[in-house]
């Protein structure tokens, strides 16, 4: 069994393969209809969000239901940076991460005093507070229901400092030193950040700090008995995870300079939980996989309507089509959430480790020739480390 102890792939290889897969997305997603910039950007952005969430939930087992607050704060900070300083995206991203980190420090400091469901409810309460405040009292900052938008009259101090010529008519667009951040350049910008984030998350998983978090997950009391104060570790994980969410939020603003309070609603927090679980919590690529799948299905399925379905099933006899189309129609188009809910239940019931675990089971089955179940379970445990 010595050979199974060695990880399947070297870490460097994992990053290279991951980077190649991400950067080549426009190519290999083309045949399945996923190749347009808006969707690709979403893959990358929600990938970052889910990877960050996984650092908290996957490593420590603390289920936060309030991560959307950090996403929202990141967006607001980024849009304010566009409005006040410059249309360059670098400061926007930095501010987004910074403010989300500060908020995460505050919320984490308070919420981490409790664990289990109490922690979930506390984070949920804080996120809902931020959401409700953004809608009501903080309207001067958040612009309430309309959402925070760019305006031509914005000061943009730095931009005006370096170029005295007034920009052309219409709203300026976000840019990275002259390169406009919409379409494919926007995607590549997000993708590069995603790869960096993935690398950092992998380093965290492999580091002593990550091991400590895993220890807290498996038995917090025992960690405390060894004389370790677990709180700072938890708080650090929470803040890092919040900063990831802030980064994702600011990237949402980079690709589309608009921030609305609905990004902070608890359903958005629920979505990232779904992504992480679907892919496999506690695994490296799982969250990215889950985020990609959910966003892909959201875009593809919700575009279906009865006409498209009727065409798709046109090879069947008419009477069958009349029966099939309404039934399938329940699950696609505006009802695609139904598919999501069902898929999610199936995953939690049969495959608590997510898609990654399913994949692993299949691989182990073939590796062991399908003869020894015991062996495959062992190998799986080791691979899961």
């Amino acid at each position, binding site marked *: 069994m010595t050979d199974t102890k060695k990880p399947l792939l070297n870490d460097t290889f994992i990053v290279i393969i991951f980077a190649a897969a991400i950067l080549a997305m426009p190519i290999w997603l083309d045949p399945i209809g996923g190749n347009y910039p808006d969707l690709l950007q979403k893959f990358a952005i929600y990938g970052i969000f889910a990877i960050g969430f996984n650092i908290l939930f996957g490593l420590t087992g603390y289920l936060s239901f309030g991560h959307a607050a950090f996403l929202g704060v990141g967006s607001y900070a980024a849009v304010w940076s566009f409005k006040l300083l410059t249309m360059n995206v670098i400061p926007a991203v930095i501010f987004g991460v910074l403010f989300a980190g500060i908020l995460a420090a505050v919320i984490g400091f308070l919420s981490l005093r*409790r664990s*289990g469901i*109490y922690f979930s*409810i506390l984070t*949920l*309460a804080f996120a809902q507070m931020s959401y409700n405040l953004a809608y009501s009292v903080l309207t001067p900052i958040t612009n309430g229901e309309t959402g925070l938008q760019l305006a031509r009259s914005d000061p943009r101090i730095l931009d005006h400092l370096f170029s005295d010529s007034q920009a052309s008519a219409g709203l300026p667009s976000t840019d990275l030193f002259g390169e406009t951040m919409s379409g494919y350049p926007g995607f590549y910008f997000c993708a590069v950040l995603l790869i960096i984030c993935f690398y950092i998350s992998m380093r965290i998983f492999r580091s002593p700090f990550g091991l400590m978090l895993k220890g807290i997950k498996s038995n917090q009391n025992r960690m405390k008995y060894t004389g370790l104060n677990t709180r700072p570790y938890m708080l650090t994980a929470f803040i890092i995870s919040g900063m990831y969410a802030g980064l994702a939020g600011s990237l949402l603003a980079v690709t589309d300079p608009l921030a609305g309070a609905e990004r902070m609603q608890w359903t958005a927090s629920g979505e990232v939980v779904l992504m992480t679980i679907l892919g496999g919590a506690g695994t490296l690529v799982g969250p990215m996989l889950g985020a990609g799948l959910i966003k892909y299905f959201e875009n593809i399925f919700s575009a279906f309507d009865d006409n498209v379905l009727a065409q798709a099933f046109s090879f069947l006899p008419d009477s069958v089509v009349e029966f099939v189309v309404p039934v399938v129609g329940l699950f696609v188009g505006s009802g695609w*959430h139904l598919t999501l809910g069902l898929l999610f*239940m199936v995953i939690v019931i049969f495959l608590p480790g997510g898609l990654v675990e399913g994949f692993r089971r299949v691989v182990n089955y073939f590796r062991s020739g399908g003869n020894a179940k015991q062996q495959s379970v062992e190998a799986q445990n080791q691979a899961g480390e």
Partner: protein
Amino acid sequence: MDAIFIQILNGLDKGAAYALIALGLTLVFGTLGIVNFAHGALFMLGAFCAVTFQKLVTLSVKVRDEGITAFVAYKEQPYLETWFGDTGRIIIDYSVPLSIMLAIPFMLLVGYVMERGLIKHFYKRPHAEQILVTFGLAIVIQEIIKAYFGANPIPQPAPEILAGSANVGSWVGLGNNLVYPWWRLIYLCFSGAVIFAVFAFLQFTTYGMVVRAGMRDRETVGILGINIERRFTIVFAIAAVVAGVAGVMYTPILPPDYHLGMEFLVLSFVVVVVGGMGSLGGAVFAGFLLGVVQSFASMNEVKEIFPGIDQIILYLVAVVILLVLPRGLMGRAGVMDD
């Protein structure tokens, strides 16, 4: 004084809905140890029982309108009116309270099927997974309702005799211009009755005694030869019924849409946690308390001092209570302590 009295009534009214949902949640948690995120969806299902019942009783046929003689006019006449005349009209008028008769068996069935079909397999799983699977179930229920009833709220009329407002002021000696909608008063009394019934069931029946014993120590009860799982299944169904009838009676106050459950769910979880996980009395008390606190926070005088306080007060109270009292207001030791 008038304003304060009205706010207390408002708060109790809001609190009644919270308390009913939180009661069911706690019952399920205390017995089965399941954190049921689909409980809000059960509330919503109850509300849609009322909608369905109303649709059923108002199934109409086109008949000649005798009132108009100048030309041939048609009007919709419900079958019930054609068949039973005035009795039919009364049934239609009272469709909301009557739909409880549909809701109770339906919710019992839903609760039973849900527990046997899904929840049963999650007793031993971690709470996080319970939350996730019931959350998924809630989405599914919600989407099915949306597919059949659409996304818009469907208003349900209260019986005509109760549509107006009661002159509450003259009852308590606060002047005649203090009025409060009848239906909300009815809702308050109704929820009081339901809560009383649940407590009486647990306290004064042998069945309830066994259930309470099971909540304390299910292993010992099992050793005594009692099939505690079976009883807990019934308790789950009862919790579903409580949520369902709460939903039915709430429809005239708030037109139900498919999203109703989720909105209430988040708040009721806050209520349950504030009251203390596993404490029935705590859940009811916290429900009414938070309702009253919320309605006071939405008074204009308070809002002038603390702008926006009405939006966050519930969460603020929850945060403070959780940080000061780790087990909530009335939580028992040993429940959900890590």
